[in-house]
Protein backbone atom coordinates (compact mmCIF):
# COMPACT_ATOMS: atom_id res chain seq x y z
CA UNK A 1 0.00 0.00 0.00
CA UNK A 2 1.04 3.58 -0.38
CA UNK A 3 0.62 6.66 1.64
CA UNK A 4 -1.89 7.70 4.21
CA UNK A 5 0.03 7.53 7.42
CA UNK A 6 1.53 10.74 8.54
CA UNK A 7 4.73 11.01 10.47
CA UNK A 8 5.66 14.45 11.60
CA UNK A 9 9.06 13.87 13.08
CA UNK A 10 10.73 12.51 10.04
CA UNK A 11 14.23 13.71 9.40
CA UNK A 12 14.33 15.10 5.89
CA UNK A 13 18.04 14.58 5.37
CA UNK A 14 18.20 10.89 6.15
CA UNK A 15 19.89 8.95 3.38
CA UNK A 16 17.94 6.39 1.44
CA UNK A 17 19.38 3.63 -0.69
CA UNK A 18 17.62 3.30 -4.00
CA UNK A 19 18.03 0.38 -6.30
CA UNK A 20 17.47 1.22 -9.95
CA UNK A 21 16.64 -1.40 -12.51
CA UNK A 22 19.43 -2.04 -14.98
CA UNK A 23 17.97 -4.78 -17.14
CA UNK A 24 17.89 -2.49 -20.17
CA UNK A 25 21.67 -2.11 -20.25
CA UNK A 26 22.18 -5.84 -20.73
CA UNK A 27 20.22 -5.80 -23.97
CA UNK A 28 22.03 -2.72 -25.15
CA UNK A 29 25.43 -4.39 -24.85
CA UNK A 30 24.14 -7.47 -26.62
CA UNK A 31 22.80 -5.35 -29.46
CA UNK A 32 26.08 -3.49 -29.76
CA UNK A 33 28.11 -6.70 -29.79
CA UNK A 34 25.81 -8.03 -32.50
CA UNK A 35 26.27 -4.89 -34.56
CA UNK A 36 30.06 -5.02 -34.28
CA UNK A 37 30.64 -8.75 -34.68
CA UNK A 38 27.70 -10.62 -36.10
CA UNK A 39 26.35 -8.20 -38.69
CA UNK A 40 29.54 -7.81 -40.78
CA UNK A 41 30.03 -11.59 -40.66
CA UNK A 42 26.57 -12.61 -41.75
CA UNK A 43 25.37 -9.59 -43.65
CA UNK A 44 26.57 -8.98 -47.19
CA UNK A 45 28.08 -5.80 -48.55
CA UNK A 46 24.83 -4.60 -50.11
CA UNK A 47 23.04 -4.90 -46.81
CA UNK A 48 25.68 -2.97 -44.92
CA UNK A 49 26.10 -0.19 -47.47
CA UNK A 50 22.61 0.31 -48.76
CA UNK A 51 20.51 -0.44 -45.70
CA UNK A 52 22.33 -0.51 -42.37
CA UNK A 53 24.58 2.53 -42.90
CA UNK A 54 21.77 4.91 -43.98
CA UNK A 55 19.56 3.53 -41.21
CA UNK A 56 22.22 4.32 -38.60
CA UNK A 57 22.84 7.80 -39.99
CA UNK A 58 19.14 8.61 -40.10
CA UNK A 59 18.84 7.38 -36.51
CA UNK A 60 21.61 9.79 -35.55
CA UNK A 61 19.87 12.67 -37.30
CA UNK A 62 16.68 11.59 -35.51
CA UNK A 63 18.45 11.83 -32.16
CA UNK A 64 19.57 15.33 -33.11
CA UNK A 65 16.07 16.53 -33.91
CA UNK A 66 14.56 14.62 -30.99
CA UNK A 67 16.82 16.47 -28.55
CA UNK A 68 15.45 19.73 -29.89
CA UNK A 69 11.82 18.82 -30.53
CA UNK A 70 11.10 15.74 -28.42
CA UNK A 71 13.02 16.79 -25.32
CA UNK A 72 13.27 20.58 -25.40
CA UNK A 73 9.93 21.09 -27.17
CA UNK A 74 11.22 23.43 -29.90
CA UNK A 75 9.79 22.66 -33.32
CA UNK A 76 12.14 22.79 -36.28
CA UNK A 77 12.02 22.16 -40.00
CA UNK A 78 15.66 23.07 -40.49
CA UNK A 79 17.21 19.61 -39.95
CA UNK A 80 18.27 19.28 -43.59
CA UNK A 81 19.96 22.66 -43.51
CA UNK A 82 21.97 21.81 -40.40
CA UNK A 83 22.97 18.47 -41.94
CA UNK A 84 24.25 20.42 -44.95
CA UNK A 85 26.28 22.70 -42.68
CA UNK A 86 27.96 19.66 -41.14
CA UNK A 87 28.67 18.12 -44.53
CA UNK A 88 30.10 21.25 -46.13
CA UNK A 89 32.07 22.25 -43.04
CA UNK A 90 33.60 18.78 -42.74
CA UNK A 91 34.47 18.98 -46.43
CA UNK A 92 36.22 22.29 -45.88
CA UNK A 93 38.27 20.88 -43.00
CA UNK A 94 39.22 17.84 -45.08
CA UNK A 95 40.13 19.87 -48.14
CA UNK A 96 41.79 22.98 -46.81
CA UNK A 97 43.30 21.82 -43.54
CA UNK A 98 43.99 18.23 -44.60
CA UNK A 99 42.61 16.99 -41.29
CA UNK A 100 42.01 13.33 -40.66
CA UNK A 101 38.35 12.37 -41.05
CA UNK A 102 37.18 11.91 -37.43
CA UNK A 103 38.64 15.29 -36.43
CA UNK A 104 37.16 17.00 -39.48
CA UNK A 105 33.85 15.34 -38.65
CA UNK A 106 33.94 16.58 -35.07
CA UNK A 107 34.85 20.13 -36.14
CA UNK A 108 32.16 20.02 -38.82
CA UNK A 109 29.68 19.13 -36.08
CA UNK A 110 30.91 22.07 -34.02
CA UNK A 111 30.39 24.46 -36.93
CA UNK A 112 26.86 23.10 -37.32
CA UNK A 113 26.37 23.62 -33.57
CA UNK A 114 27.48 27.24 -33.95
CA UNK A 115 25.01 27.79 -36.79
CA UNK A 116 22.31 26.05 -34.74
CA UNK A 117 23.12 28.33 -31.83
CA UNK A 118 22.65 31.41 -34.06
CA UNK A 119 19.36 30.20 -35.51
CA UNK A 120 18.27 29.18 -32.02
CA UNK A 121 18.57 32.71 -30.65
CA UNK A 122 15.05 33.73 -31.78
CA UNK A 123 13.61 30.90 -29.66
CA UNK A 124 14.06 33.17 -26.65
CA UNK A 125 11.25 35.34 -28.02
CA UNK A 126 9.08 33.18 -30.26
CA UNK A 127 7.38 29.84 -29.79
CA UNK A 128 5.55 27.05 -31.58
CA UNK A 129 4.51 27.57 -35.17
CA UNK A 130 6.27 30.92 -35.40
CA UNK A 131 9.51 29.30 -34.37
CA UNK A 132 8.92 26.63 -36.99
CA UNK A 133 8.77 29.37 -39.58
CA UNK A 134 12.14 30.74 -38.52
CA UNK A 135 13.60 27.24 -38.80
CA UNK A 136 12.12 27.05 -42.29
CA UNK A 137 13.88 30.31 -43.07
CA UNK A 138 17.12 28.74 -41.82
CA UNK A 139 16.54 25.76 -44.10
CA UNK A 140 16.00 27.91 -47.20
CA UNK A 141 18.86 30.26 -46.38
CA UNK A 142 21.33 27.42 -45.87
CA UNK A 143 20.23 25.67 -49.08
CA UNK A 144 20.69 28.92 -50.96
CA UNK A 145 24.07 29.55 -49.37
CA UNK A 146 25.53 26.17 -50.30
CA UNK A 147 24.30 26.51 -53.86
CA UNK A 148 25.23 30.12 -54.52
CA UNK A 149 28.68 30.29 -52.96
CA UNK A 150 30.97 28.03 -55.04
CA UNK A 151 33.73 28.13 -52.40
CA UNK A 152 31.74 25.64 -50.35
CA UNK A 153 31.91 22.98 -53.06
CA UNK A 154 35.41 23.97 -54.18
CA UNK A 155 34.18 25.44 -57.50
CA UNK A 156 33.30 22.00 -58.88
CA UNK A 157 31.08 22.13 -61.95
CA UNK A 158 28.49 19.74 -60.49
CA UNK A 159 28.15 21.76 -57.25
CA UNK A 160 28.74 18.59 -55.25
CA UNK A 161 31.29 17.61 -52.66
CA UNK A 162 33.10 14.29 -52.28
CA UNK A 163 35.73 13.24 -49.80
CA UNK A 164 39.31 13.64 -51.00
CA UNK A 165 40.24 10.54 -49.00
CA UNK A 166 38.74 8.65 -46.11
CA UNK A 167 41.45 7.17 -43.97
CA UNK A 168 42.28 7.83 -40.39
CA UNK A 169 45.30 7.02 -38.26
CA UNK A 170 46.49 4.61 -40.92
CA UNK A 171 43.18 2.75 -41.20
CA UNK A 172 41.63 2.73 -44.64
CA UNK A 173 37.97 3.65 -44.45
CA UNK A 174 37.22 3.56 -48.15
CA UNK A 175 35.87 0.02 -48.28
CA UNK A 176 32.32 -0.71 -47.19
CA UNK A 177 33.31 -2.49 -43.98
CA UNK A 178 35.49 0.45 -42.94
CA UNK A 179 32.65 2.90 -43.55
CA UNK A 180 30.26 0.68 -41.64
CA UNK A 181 32.54 0.53 -38.60
CA UNK A 182 33.12 4.26 -38.77
CA UNK A 183 29.39 5.02 -38.84
CA UNK A 184 28.59 2.43 -36.18
CA UNK A 185 31.25 3.79 -33.82
CA UNK A 186 30.19 7.42 -34.25
CA UNK A 187 26.51 6.53 -33.79
CA UNK A 188 27.20 4.34 -30.75
CA UNK A 189 29.30 7.01 -29.02
CA UNK A 190 26.86 9.82 -29.77
CA UNK A 191 23.90 7.69 -28.67
CA UNK A 192 25.66 7.10 -25.36
CA UNK A 193 26.26 10.84 -25.03
CA UNK A 194 22.61 11.59 -25.86
CA UNK A 195 21.39 9.11 -23.25
CA UNK A 196 23.68 10.71 -20.67
CA UNK A 197 22.38 14.15 -21.56
CA UNK A 198 18.67 13.40 -21.45
CA UNK A 199 19.04 11.60 -18.12
CA UNK A 200 20.99 14.46 -16.56
CA UNK A 201 19.95 17.81 -15.14
CA UNK A 202 20.44 19.23 -18.65
CA UNK A 203 17.83 16.80 -20.01
CA UNK A 204 15.41 17.40 -17.16
CA UNK A 205 15.69 21.13 -17.76
CA UNK A 206 14.85 20.58 -21.45
CA UNK A 207 11.79 18.53 -20.61
CA UNK A 208 10.66 21.05 -18.02
CA UNK A 209 10.91 23.84 -20.61
CA UNK A 210 8.98 21.63 -23.05
CA UNK A 211 6.17 20.79 -20.61
CA UNK A 212 5.66 24.27 -19.12
CA UNK A 213 8.21 27.01 -19.55
CA UNK A 214 6.79 29.54 -17.07
CA UNK A 215 6.80 26.91 -14.33
CA UNK A 216 10.36 26.00 -15.33
CA UNK A 217 11.51 29.56 -14.66
CA UNK A 218 9.72 29.59 -11.31
CA UNK A 219 11.45 26.30 -10.45
CA UNK A 220 14.81 28.00 -11.10
CA UNK A 221 15.62 26.80 -14.61
CA UNK A 222 17.34 29.12 -17.08
CA UNK A 223 14.85 28.72 -19.93
CA UNK A 224 16.64 30.59 -22.71
CA UNK A 225 19.95 28.98 -21.92
CA UNK A 226 18.25 25.56 -22.03
CA UNK A 227 16.57 26.22 -25.38
CA UNK A 228 19.65 27.57 -27.10
CA UNK A 229 21.79 24.74 -25.74
CA UNK A 230 19.26 22.30 -27.23
CA UNK A 231 19.55 24.06 -30.61
CA UNK A 232 23.35 23.86 -30.54
CA UNK A 233 23.59 20.22 -29.44
CA UNK A 234 20.81 19.18 -31.83
CA UNK A 235 22.63 20.86 -34.70
CA UNK A 236 25.89 19.17 -33.72
CA UNK A 237 24.20 15.79 -34.11
CA UNK A 238 22.53 16.79 -37.37
CA UNK A 239 25.81 18.17 -38.71
CA UNK A 240 27.68 14.96 -37.94
CA UNK A 241 24.84 12.97 -39.52
CA UNK A 242 24.99 15.17 -42.63
CA UNK A 243 28.73 14.66 -43.00
CA UNK A 244 28.40 10.89 -42.56
CA UNK A 245 25.54 10.87 -45.05
CA UNK A 246 27.79 12.55 -47.60
CA UNK A 247 31.10 10.82 -47.05
CA UNK A 248 30.22 7.41 -45.59
CA UNK A 249 26.98 6.70 -47.43
CA UNK A 250 26.58 8.63 -50.68
CA UNK A 251 30.26 9.25 -51.39
CA UNK A 252 29.49 12.59 -52.92
CA UNK A 253 26.53 14.88 -52.43
CA UNK A 254 25.18 18.30 -53.20
CA UNK A 255 22.84 20.50 -51.25
CA UNK A 256 19.89 18.72 -52.92
CA UNK A 257 20.53 15.81 -50.56
CA UNK A 258 19.66 18.10 -47.65
CA UNK A 259 16.51 19.79 -48.83
CA UNK A 260 13.22 20.35 -47.08
CA UNK A 261 12.12 16.80 -47.81
CA UNK A 262 15.09 15.60 -45.72
CA UNK A 263 13.90 17.82 -42.86
CA UNK A 264 10.46 16.26 -43.13
CA UNK A 265 11.94 12.77 -43.26
CA UNK A 266 13.81 13.36 -39.99
CA UNK A 267 10.68 14.84 -38.44
CA UNK A 268 8.64 11.78 -39.46
CA UNK A 269 11.30 9.52 -37.97
CA UNK A 270 10.94 11.07 -34.53
CA UNK A 271 7.15 11.36 -34.70
CA UNK A 272 6.78 7.71 -35.68
CA UNK A 273 9.51 6.52 -33.33
CA UNK A 274 8.42 8.64 -30.42
CA UNK A 275 9.07 12.22 -29.33
CA UNK A 276 11.28 12.28 -26.28
CA UNK A 277 12.71 8.80 -26.76
CA UNK A 278 16.23 7.92 -27.88
CA UNK A 279 15.38 4.33 -28.77
CA UNK A 280 12.42 5.71 -30.71
CA UNK A 281 14.85 7.39 -33.12
CA UNK A 282 16.20 3.99 -34.14
CA UNK A 283 12.72 2.48 -34.38
CA UNK A 284 11.49 5.41 -36.46
CA UNK A 285 14.53 5.33 -38.74
CA UNK A 286 14.08 1.58 -39.21
CA UNK A 287 10.42 2.14 -40.05
CA UNK A 288 11.19 4.90 -42.54
CA UNK A 289 14.09 3.16 -44.26
CA UNK A 290 13.11 -0.51 -44.03
CA UNK A 291 9.35 -0.49 -44.55
CA UNK A 292 9.53 0.85 -48.14
CA UNK A 293 12.06 -1.90 -48.90
CA UNK A 294 9.85 -4.55 -47.32
CA UNK A 295 6.83 -3.27 -49.24
CA UNK A 296 8.91 -3.33 -52.39
CA UNK A 297 9.93 -6.94 -51.84
CA UNK A 298 6.34 -7.97 -51.10
CA UNK A 299 4.99 -6.13 -54.12
CA UNK A 300 7.65 -7.56 -56.41
CA UNK A 301 7.05 -11.15 -55.37
CA UNK A 302 3.26 -10.89 -55.49
CA UNK A 303 2.46 -8.61 -58.39
CA UNK A 304 5.58 -8.27 -60.54
CA UNK A 305 4.69 -8.40 -64.21
CA UNK A 306 0.95 -8.39 -63.56
CA UNK A 307 0.60 -4.79 -62.36
CA UNK A 308 2.17 -1.77 -64.00
CA UNK A 309 5.46 -0.92 -62.28
CA UNK A 310 4.68 2.78 -61.91
CA UNK A 311 1.30 2.03 -60.39
CA UNK A 312 2.93 -0.44 -58.02
CA UNK A 313 5.31 2.28 -56.83
CA UNK A 314 2.45 4.61 -56.09
CA UNK A 315 0.46 1.92 -54.31
CA UNK A 316 3.49 1.27 -52.11
CA UNK A 317 3.68 4.94 -51.19
CA UNK A 318 -0.03 4.98 -50.35
CA UNK A 319 0.31 1.87 -48.15
CA UNK A 320 3.35 3.40 -46.47
CA UNK A 321 1.39 6.58 -45.70
CA UNK A 322 -1.63 4.62 -44.48
CA UNK A 323 0.56 2.57 -42.14
CA UNK A 324 2.04 5.74 -40.65
CA UNK A 325 -1.44 7.11 -40.02
CA UNK A 326 -2.58 3.82 -38.53
CA UNK A 327 0.39 3.72 -36.13
CA UNK A 328 -0.13 7.28 -35.03
CA UNK A 329 -3.82 6.69 -34.32
CA UNK A 330 -2.98 3.51 -32.44
CA UNK A 331 -0.22 5.14 -30.42
CA UNK A 332 0.23 8.91 -30.75
CA UNK A 333 3.32 8.75 -28.56
CA UNK A 334 5.16 6.71 -31.16
CA UNK A 335 6.36 3.18 -31.60
CA UNK A 336 8.82 3.31 -28.71
CA UNK A 337 5.85 3.77 -26.37
CA UNK A 338 3.90 1.05 -28.17
CA UNK A 339 6.73 -1.41 -27.66
CA UNK A 340 7.29 -0.48 -24.02
CA UNK A 341 3.59 -0.93 -23.25
CA UNK A 342 3.67 -4.33 -24.96
CA UNK A 343 6.65 -5.21 -22.83
CA UNK A 344 5.03 -4.16 -19.57
CA UNK A 345 1.88 -6.04 -20.56
CA UNK A 346 3.97 -9.09 -21.32
CA UNK A 347 5.79 -8.89 -18.00
CA UNK A 348 2.54 -9.18 -16.05
CA UNK A 349 0.91 -11.40 -18.65
CA UNK A 350 -0.05 -14.46 -16.61
CA UNK A 351 -1.54 -12.25 -13.91
CA UNK A 352 -3.58 -10.13 -16.23
CA UNK A 353 -6.92 -11.16 -14.81
Amino acid at each position, binding site marked *: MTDTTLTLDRN*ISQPIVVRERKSGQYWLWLLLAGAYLALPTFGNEYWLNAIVVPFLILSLAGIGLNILTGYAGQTSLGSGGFMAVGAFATYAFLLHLQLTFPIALFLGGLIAALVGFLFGLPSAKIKGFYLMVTSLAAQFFLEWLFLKVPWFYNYSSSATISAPRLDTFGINLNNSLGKYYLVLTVVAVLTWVALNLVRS*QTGRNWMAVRDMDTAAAV*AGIRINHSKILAFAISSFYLGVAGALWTFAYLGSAGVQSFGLSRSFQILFIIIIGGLGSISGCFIGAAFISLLPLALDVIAQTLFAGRVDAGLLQNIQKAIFGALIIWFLIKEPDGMARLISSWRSRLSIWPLRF
Partner: protein
Amino acid sequence: MTANSAGAGDQDAILRVRNISLSFQGIKAITDLSFNVRRREICALIGPNGAGKSSLLNVVNGVYTPDSGEIQYGNETFRRLKPLDAARRGIGRTFQNNALFKKMSVRDNIMTGLSRHSRTNFIEHALRLPRARREEADFTRRSESVLEFLDLRAHRHTPVGSLAYGVQKRVELGRALVSDPTLLLLDEPMAGMNAQEKAEMAAFIKDINQHLGITIVLIEHDVSVIMNLSDHVVVLDYGRKVGDGTPAEVRANPAVIAAYLGATH
Protein backbone atom coordinates in the same frame (compact mmCIF):
# COMPACT_ATOMS: atom_id res chain seq x y z
CA MET B 1 6.55 32.01 19.81
CA THR B 2 3.30 33.84 19.62
CA ALA B 3 2.39 35.46 16.39
CA ASN B 4 1.91 39.17 16.33
CA SER B 5 0.87 41.68 13.80
CA ALA B 6 3.58 42.77 11.46
CA GLY B 7 4.01 46.48 11.99
CA ALA B 8 5.89 48.83 9.68
CA GLY B 9 8.94 48.95 11.95
CA ASP B 10 9.22 45.18 12.14
CA GLN B 11 12.94 44.35 12.19
CA ASP B 12 12.50 40.63 11.72
CA ALA B 13 10.64 40.73 8.41
CA ILE B 14 11.95 38.55 5.58
CA LEU B 15 9.52 39.99 3.06
CA ARG B 16 8.20 43.52 2.90
CA VAL B 17 5.55 44.35 0.36
CA ARG B 18 5.46 48.12 -0.05
CA ASN B 19 2.71 50.08 -1.78
CA ILE B 20 2.23 47.55 -4.52
CA SER B 21 -0.31 48.39 -7.22
CA LEU B 22 -1.07 46.16 -10.19
CA SER B 23 -3.57 46.48 -13.00
CA PHE B 24 -4.47 44.53 -16.09
CA GLN B 25 -5.45 46.76 -19.01
CA GLY B 26 -6.81 49.40 -16.71
CA ILE B 27 -8.57 47.05 -14.33
CA LYS B 28 -7.04 47.30 -10.90
CA ALA B 29 -6.10 43.98 -9.34
CA ILE B 30 -4.10 45.30 -6.39
CA THR B 31 -4.19 48.82 -4.98
CA ASP B 32 -1.45 50.28 -2.80
CA LEU B 33 -0.91 47.14 -0.78
CA SER B 34 1.68 46.88 2.01
CA PHE B 35 2.41 44.20 4.56
CA ASN B 36 5.35 42.41 6.13
CA VAL B 37 6.06 38.73 6.58
CA ARG B 38 8.24 37.80 9.54
CA ARG B 39 10.97 35.23 9.28
CA ARG B 40 9.77 31.67 10.01
CA GLU B 41 6.09 32.53 10.27
CA ILE B 42 3.14 31.09 8.36
CA CYS B 43 1.28 33.98 6.78
CA ALA B 44 -2.12 33.33 5.24
CA LEU B 45 -3.62 35.53 2.52
CA ILE B 46 -7.38 35.35 2.52
CA GLY B 47 -10.16 37.12 0.69
CA PRO B 48 -12.97 36.44 -1.76
CA ASN B 49 -12.32 35.28 -5.31
CA GLY B 50 -10.75 38.02 -7.37
CA ALA B 51 -9.39 39.84 -4.34
CA GLY B 52 -5.88 39.81 -5.83
CA LYS B 53 -4.30 37.06 -3.74
CA SER B 54 -2.76 35.03 -6.56
CA SER B 55 -1.75 38.20 -8.37
CA LEU B 56 0.09 39.25 -5.24
CA LEU B 57 2.05 35.99 -5.09
CA ASN B 58 2.85 36.47 -8.77
CA VAL B 59 4.25 39.91 -7.99
CA VAL B 60 6.36 38.56 -5.12
CA ASN B 61 8.08 35.93 -7.26
CA GLY B 62 8.33 38.02 -10.38
CA VAL B 63 5.71 36.47 -12.67
CA TYR B 64 3.95 39.86 -12.77
CA THR B 65 5.57 43.27 -12.73
CA PRO B 66 3.72 45.75 -10.50
CA ASP B 67 2.71 49.20 -11.79
CA SER B 68 4.21 50.78 -8.70
CA GLY B 69 5.61 49.86 -5.32
CA GLU B 70 8.46 47.59 -4.38
CA ILE B 71 9.27 44.26 -2.80
CA GLN B 72 11.97 43.94 -0.21
CA TYR B 73 13.22 40.40 0.24
CA GLY B 74 15.96 39.94 2.80
CA ASN B 75 18.27 42.90 2.30
CA GLU B 76 17.45 43.46 -1.36
CA THR B 77 14.79 45.76 -2.70
CA PHE B 78 13.21 45.15 -6.09
CA ARG B 79 11.09 47.27 -8.37
CA ARG B 80 11.03 44.46 -10.86
CA LEU B 81 12.00 40.86 -10.30
CA LYS B 82 12.17 37.95 -12.72
CA PRO B 83 10.88 34.47 -11.75
CA LEU B 84 14.35 32.98 -12.24
CA ASP B 85 15.96 35.57 -9.96
CA ALA B 86 13.30 34.92 -7.34
CA ALA B 87 13.95 31.18 -7.52
CA ARG B 88 17.69 31.72 -7.23
CA ARG B 89 17.21 33.79 -4.10
CA GLY B 90 15.32 30.96 -2.48
CA ILE B 91 11.69 31.85 -3.16
CA GLY B 92 9.80 28.62 -3.87
CA ARG B 93 6.33 28.62 -5.36
CA THR B 94 3.36 26.39 -6.09
CA PHE B 95 0.41 27.32 -8.27
CA GLN B 96 -3.34 27.13 -7.85
CA ASN B 97 -3.78 24.97 -10.95
CA ASN B 98 -0.72 22.76 -10.62
CA ALA B 99 2.11 23.87 -12.86
CA LEU B 100 3.93 20.57 -13.14
CA PHE B 101 5.86 18.95 -15.98
CA LYS B 102 3.20 16.44 -16.91
CA LYS B 103 5.16 14.01 -19.05
CA MET B 104 8.01 13.70 -16.57
CA SER B 105 8.10 11.29 -13.67
CA VAL B 106 7.46 12.43 -10.11
CA ARG B 107 11.11 12.22 -9.19
CA ASP B 108 12.27 14.04 -12.32
CA ASN B 109 9.77 16.79 -11.53
CA ILE B 110 11.20 17.11 -8.04
CA MET B 111 14.76 17.06 -9.37
CA THR B 112 14.09 20.03 -11.65
CA GLY B 113 13.73 22.07 -8.47
CA LEU B 114 17.44 21.50 -7.80
CA SER B 115 18.58 23.37 -10.92
CA ARG B 116 19.56 26.41 -8.92
CA HIS B 117 22.04 24.26 -6.99
CA SER B 118 23.62 22.71 -10.08
CA ARG B 119 27.33 23.46 -10.45
CA THR B 120 28.04 21.16 -13.41
CA ASN B 121 27.79 21.97 -17.11
CA PHE B 122 26.38 20.06 -20.06
CA ILE B 123 29.73 18.68 -21.16
CA GLU B 124 30.16 17.06 -17.76
CA HIS B 125 26.63 15.68 -18.11
CA ALA B 126 27.22 14.45 -21.66
CA LEU B 127 30.35 12.49 -20.74
CA ARG B 128 29.24 11.50 -17.23
CA LEU B 129 32.37 12.97 -15.73
CA PRO B 130 32.94 12.35 -11.99
CA ARG B 131 31.67 15.74 -10.88
CA ALA B 132 28.42 15.23 -12.80
CA ARG B 133 27.98 11.73 -11.35
CA ARG B 134 28.56 12.97 -7.81
CA GLU B 135 26.08 15.79 -8.31
CA GLU B 136 23.52 13.42 -9.82
CA ALA B 137 23.89 11.09 -6.84
CA ASP B 138 23.54 14.03 -4.47
CA PHE B 139 20.44 15.34 -6.30
CA THR B 140 18.91 11.87 -6.31
CA ARG B 141 19.47 11.56 -2.59
CA ARG B 142 17.97 14.97 -1.88
CA SER B 143 14.96 14.20 -4.06
CA GLU B 144 14.46 10.85 -2.39
CA SER B 145 14.43 12.57 1.00
CA VAL B 146 11.67 14.86 -0.20
CA LEU B 147 9.76 11.94 -1.73
CA GLU B 148 9.98 10.18 1.60
CA PHE B 149 8.99 13.27 3.56
CA LEU B 150 5.88 13.82 1.42
CA ASP B 151 4.98 10.12 1.20
CA LEU B 152 5.51 10.09 -2.56
CA ARG B 153 7.98 7.24 -2.85
CA ALA B 154 5.43 4.83 -4.29
CA HIS B 155 4.85 7.24 -7.18
CA ARG B 156 8.55 7.92 -7.85
CA HIS B 157 8.57 6.75 -11.49
CA THR B 158 4.97 7.60 -12.40
CA PRO B 159 4.40 10.34 -14.98
CA VAL B 160 2.87 13.26 -13.08
CA GLY B 161 0.04 13.73 -15.57
CA SER B 162 -1.50 10.40 -14.59
CA LEU B 163 -1.66 11.13 -10.85
CA ALA B 164 -4.66 12.29 -8.81
CA TYR B 165 -4.96 16.02 -8.27
CA GLY B 166 -4.20 15.85 -4.55
CA VAL B 167 -1.03 13.86 -5.15
CA GLN B 168 0.03 16.34 -7.83
CA LYS B 169 -0.30 19.11 -5.26
CA ARG B 170 2.16 17.26 -3.08
CA VAL B 171 4.57 16.79 -6.00
CA GLU B 172 4.50 20.50 -6.67
CA LEU B 173 5.17 21.21 -3.02
CA GLY B 174 8.07 18.75 -3.25
CA ARG B 175 9.55 20.51 -6.27
CA ALA B 176 9.53 23.80 -4.38
CA LEU B 177 10.79 22.20 -1.16
CA VAL B 178 13.75 20.32 -2.65
CA SER B 179 15.40 23.57 -3.72
CA ASP B 180 15.93 24.37 -0.03
CA PRO B 181 13.92 27.60 -0.16
CA THR B 182 13.90 30.36 2.43
CA LEU B 183 10.38 31.47 1.54
CA LEU B 184 7.60 29.30 0.16
CA LEU B 185 4.61 30.78 -1.63
CA LEU B 186 1.74 28.28 -1.72
CA ASP B 187 -1.29 29.14 -3.83
CA GLU B 188 -4.26 27.17 -2.47
CA PRO B 189 -2.27 24.07 -1.51
CA MET B 190 -5.47 22.39 -0.28
CA ALA B 191 -7.85 23.28 -3.10
CA GLY B 192 -10.06 20.43 -4.20
CA MET B 193 -9.05 18.15 -1.33
CA ASN B 194 -11.24 16.22 1.07
CA ALA B 195 -10.99 16.72 4.83
CA GLN B 196 -8.40 14.01 5.36
CA GLU B 197 -6.17 15.20 2.52
CA LYS B 198 -6.44 18.74 3.86
CA ALA B 199 -5.36 17.59 7.30
CA GLU B 200 -2.39 15.79 5.78
CA MET B 201 -1.36 18.79 3.72
CA ALA B 202 -1.76 21.10 6.73
CA ALA B 203 0.50 18.77 8.73
CA PHE B 204 3.12 18.84 5.96
CA ILE B 205 3.04 22.62 5.86
CA LYS B 206 3.32 22.89 9.63
CA ASP B 207 6.19 20.43 9.58
CA ILE B 208 8.03 22.31 6.85
CA ASN B 209 7.62 25.53 8.79
CA GLN B 210 8.61 24.23 12.21
CA HIS B 211 11.29 21.66 11.45
CA LEU B 212 12.91 23.21 8.40
CA GLY B 213 12.38 26.80 9.48
CA ILE B 214 10.94 27.87 6.14
CA THR B 215 8.79 30.98 6.02
CA ILE B 216 5.46 30.30 4.33
CA VAL B 217 2.96 32.58 2.64
CA LEU B 218 -0.14 30.69 1.60
CA ILE B 219 -3.53 31.34 0.10
CA GLU B 220 -6.39 29.32 1.49
CA HIS B 221 -10.17 29.53 1.60
CA ASP B 222 -10.93 27.13 4.44
CA VAL B 223 -11.16 29.41 7.46
CA SER B 224 -10.82 26.67 10.07
CA VAL B 225 -7.59 25.49 8.45
CA ILE B 226 -6.23 29.04 8.43
CA MET B 227 -7.08 29.68 12.06
CA ASN B 228 -5.24 26.54 13.12
CA LEU B 229 -2.27 26.78 10.81
CA SER B 230 -1.23 30.39 10.45
CA ASP B 231 0.57 32.83 12.71
CA HIS B 232 -0.44 35.86 10.71
CA VAL B 233 -3.38 36.60 8.43
CA VAL B 234 -3.65 39.29 5.75
CA VAL B 235 -7.16 39.88 4.41
CA LEU B 236 -7.66 41.27 0.90
CA ASP B 237 -10.82 42.54 -0.71
CA TYR B 238 -10.96 44.12 -4.17
CA GLY B 239 -7.18 44.41 -4.19
CA ARG B 240 -6.98 46.31 -0.92
CA LYS B 241 -5.89 45.21 2.51
CA VAL B 242 -8.83 45.13 4.91
CA GLY B 243 -7.24 43.22 7.75
CA ASP B 244 -3.77 42.28 9.02
CA GLY B 245 -2.95 40.54 12.28
CA THR B 246 -3.12 37.32 14.25
CA PRO B 247 -5.95 34.93 13.39
CA ALA B 248 -7.80 36.01 16.53
CA GLU B 249 -7.44 39.72 15.74
CA VAL B 250 -8.57 39.23 12.18
CA ARG B 251 -11.55 37.18 13.24
CA ALA B 252 -12.66 40.02 15.52
CA ASN B 253 -12.19 42.74 12.89
CA PRO B 254 -15.61 44.06 11.76
CA ALA B 255 -14.33 45.09 8.33
CA VAL B 256 -13.05 41.58 7.73
CA ILE B 257 -16.30 40.01 8.87
CA ALA B 258 -18.18 42.24 6.48
CA ALA B 259 -15.88 41.57 3.57
CA TYR B 260 -15.25 37.91 3.90
CA LEU B 261 -15.82 35.82 6.96
CA GLY B 262 -19.42 36.81 7.55
CA ALA B 263 -20.27 36.53 3.91
CA THR B 264 -19.22 32.94 3.42
CA HIS B 265 -19.59 30.94 6.62
